């Protein structure tokens, strides 16, 4: 056992922390207010190598690991969830699948620019009637000669509708030629494909600057060789991306919880006057103690899942533990800190209001808490 970070992991964490504090923090309120995508910040993140941390040098990556990747996500989220989400979706939603299942040509063509930060990736899975229930997707892909014809729609897709969003990794139903069976395949759809349309942007409770859209595929055509990996393994590819994404949500939630703690700590330090001892005011300091403890548990959980992933070991259970525990914990912490700040917490002049509105999202994306429990229970009963 060794709980220490390696010098390289530590360096990534410190670099991310510094960048988050110096570059992101002063702009966070602005993004939330305007709802605009932070193009300049994203390109600086790529320049620092954040988009390619766990990928090999030959694709422009950092030759690092998922522990470093998730540490970076936590540190960004500790200041603002937005850049952490953009990074998470590009890395776990698109780059991860391209790297694991793509051909060398696909990697050179799409993975390299993602890592360089020239483009952003998205993952198109969710549909109006199919979220966690992946097998119910209705989007279809039909192979016609040398081209795929895709029809259907997706919703809530993050990182879309942006001028630098190059591809969406789309899950679609298709008929396997060999036996005529319906299977789920995964196709790389460039955003300039004919028949690809982006719908309106959602007005949301929080996270106003994450770019989520409805997508329409209206006889959308892409070349045959844009299929990712094996035609019948789309479902497991999506699951693999989701699993990486769930560790990332664990890190993101931990960062958010830490951000709430940081705010509460500063606020309380100011409020508890020097002469008043901890024994006079226990309720709130004890609340802080619980919050600090739960954050430490969240952090250890996502790091263990990331570490197992780095070891190439099975980590299904751990990835879901991390996502489920850290997201529910973060919402609880954001709610408690809002109360600690009461009545000031409800004002948008404090970041806690933004954290509170953002928190609930992590219990919903990448599968709701119910889905996490379902999968954990299924693993337990195996």
């Amino acid at each position: 056992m060794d709980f220490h970070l390696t010098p390289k992991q530590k360096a990534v964490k410190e670099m991310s922390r510094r960048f988050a504090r110096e570059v992101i923090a002063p702009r966070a309120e602005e993004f939330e207010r305007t709802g605009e995508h932070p193009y300049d910040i994203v390109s600086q993140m790529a320049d620092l190598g954040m988009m390619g941390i766990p990928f090999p040098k030959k694709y422009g990556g950092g030759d690092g690991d998922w522990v470093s990747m998730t540490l970076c996500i936590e540190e960004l989220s500790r200041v603002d969830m937005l850049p952490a989400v953009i990074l998470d979706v590009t890395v776990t939603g698109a780059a991860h699948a391209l790297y694991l299942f793509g051909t060398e040509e696909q990697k050179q063509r799409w993975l390299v620019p993602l890592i360089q930060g020239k483009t952003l990736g998205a993952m198109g899975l969710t549909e109006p009637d199919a979220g966690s229930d992946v097998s119910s997707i209705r989007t279809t892909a039909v192979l016609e000669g040398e081209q795929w014809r895709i029809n259907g729609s997706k919703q809530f897709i993050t990182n879309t509708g942006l001028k630098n969003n190059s591809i969406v990794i789309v899950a679609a139903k298709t008929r396997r030629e060999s036996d005529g069976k319906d299977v789920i395949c995964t196709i790389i759809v460039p955003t300039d494909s004919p028949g690809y349309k982006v719908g309106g942007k959602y007005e949301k409770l929080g996270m106003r600057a994450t770019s989520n859209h409805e997508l329409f595929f209206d006889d959308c055509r892409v070349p045959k060789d844009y299929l990712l990996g094996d035609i019948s393994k789309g479902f497991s590819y999506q699951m693999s991306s989701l699993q990486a994404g769930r560790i990332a949500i664990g890190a993101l939630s931990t960062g958010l919880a830490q951000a709430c703690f940081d705010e509460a700590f500063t606020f309380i330090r100011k409020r508890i006057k020097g002469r008043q001892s901890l024994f006079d005011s226990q309720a709130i300091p004890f609340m802080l103690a619980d919050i600090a403890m739960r954050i430490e548990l969240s952090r250890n959980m996502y790091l263990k899942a990331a570490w197992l992933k780095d070891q190439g070991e099975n980590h299904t259970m751990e990835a879901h533990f991390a996502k489920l525990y850290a997201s529910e914990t973060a919402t609880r912490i954001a709610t408690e800190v809002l109360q600690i700040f009461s009545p000031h917490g409800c004002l948008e002049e404090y970041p806690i209001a933004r954290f509170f509105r953002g928190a609930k999202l992590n219990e919903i994306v990448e599968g709701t808490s119910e889905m996490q429990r379902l999968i954990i229970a299924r693993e337990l009963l195996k």
Partner: protein
Amino acid sequence: MDFHLSKEQEDIRKAAESFAEGECDPDLISEWEREYRFPIAIWQKACELGFIGMHIPEEYGGQGLGLLENALVFEAFCRKDSGVGLALALSDLGSEIILKYGTQKQKKMTLPSICSGKTISTLAYLEEGQRDEVGFFETKAIEQGDGFLIQGNKKFVFNLTLPGPAVVMCRLSGNSEKGETAAFLFDKNAEGLVPEVLGDRVGMRMIPMGNLTFADLNIPHEGLLGNRGDGQSQLALSLSEMNIKASAVGTGIAQGAFDMALAYAHRRIQFGRKIASFEAIRGRLTDMATRIELSRLLTHKAAWSFDRKSGDSKLPEMAKAVASETALKVAQDALHIFGGYGYVVDYRIERFYRDASMVDIIGLPGHSNKKSLANHVIGRI
């Protein structure tokens, strides 16, 4: 023991529900909310129908009923719309002090216009750096020859810029005995007031809320409400009333969020089944319903006790603590049941969630309420 509402109370509840059903146009309300506008039209209609100031005697324009009837009305309003319900529930703040401590003239001057929809009142009681004590005020009322000069700052004043009467809690100085507290009646349009409306906030966006600076506000002797030294008990009375209203509001918001989540759970199909058929969703909805029932019972008990003039601060404080937590927890769970849609503004549940987070700031905010409650349960040591 009798847990039934009377026939009259049932009728009031139903009337309030059908009024809210008829008046709350979701698109219009979303627009008001986005623009931080008070729902003037609905409020005026509610006043015309006698829903505001129900517990105020008929001779002052009210219905002469109790706070329990008030609670039934505001629960029904909030159930239909959290934002409108909040705005209407808080539109007569401070009237309790005027009613119980005011002279005939003070009452005649203010209460009928509050009940009839001509003015919206407020109570200025919270201050920066307030010790968690009821009845601690830095705002000074300096007694001079022909009246009082008010100086100080109040925080989180509701209905700040809406025309109408207001009550301010002060500490006396000058000719008066130092340290005594008292309440004063003034008009929000008077000279010597500097209102500062707070900008963006999580919820409660239809109520103009903010800081009020008293820069030498002159109040004649007739502006004193009750006697010098009454301040503490006046505020305690008002807080009890506000806590009960907050409890009704919180219960209503929770019920409204539950209604939406239940309807959605019947609509939404996943894995080929209505999600309302999944045990996890059934469990969540069941817990929500249980919490709402608890919150409602305590709200009704606190209101019933208040109407019997018990003077007990404990029940209203408990009810508010439970109802504000219930509102937030239930709205959070309701949003969760909506999944991704819950996060989207068009589905309205996110607004109930945002408004639910604000119930706590009515009366004494969170921790202060708990401390005050501890003093009532355990006593000061």
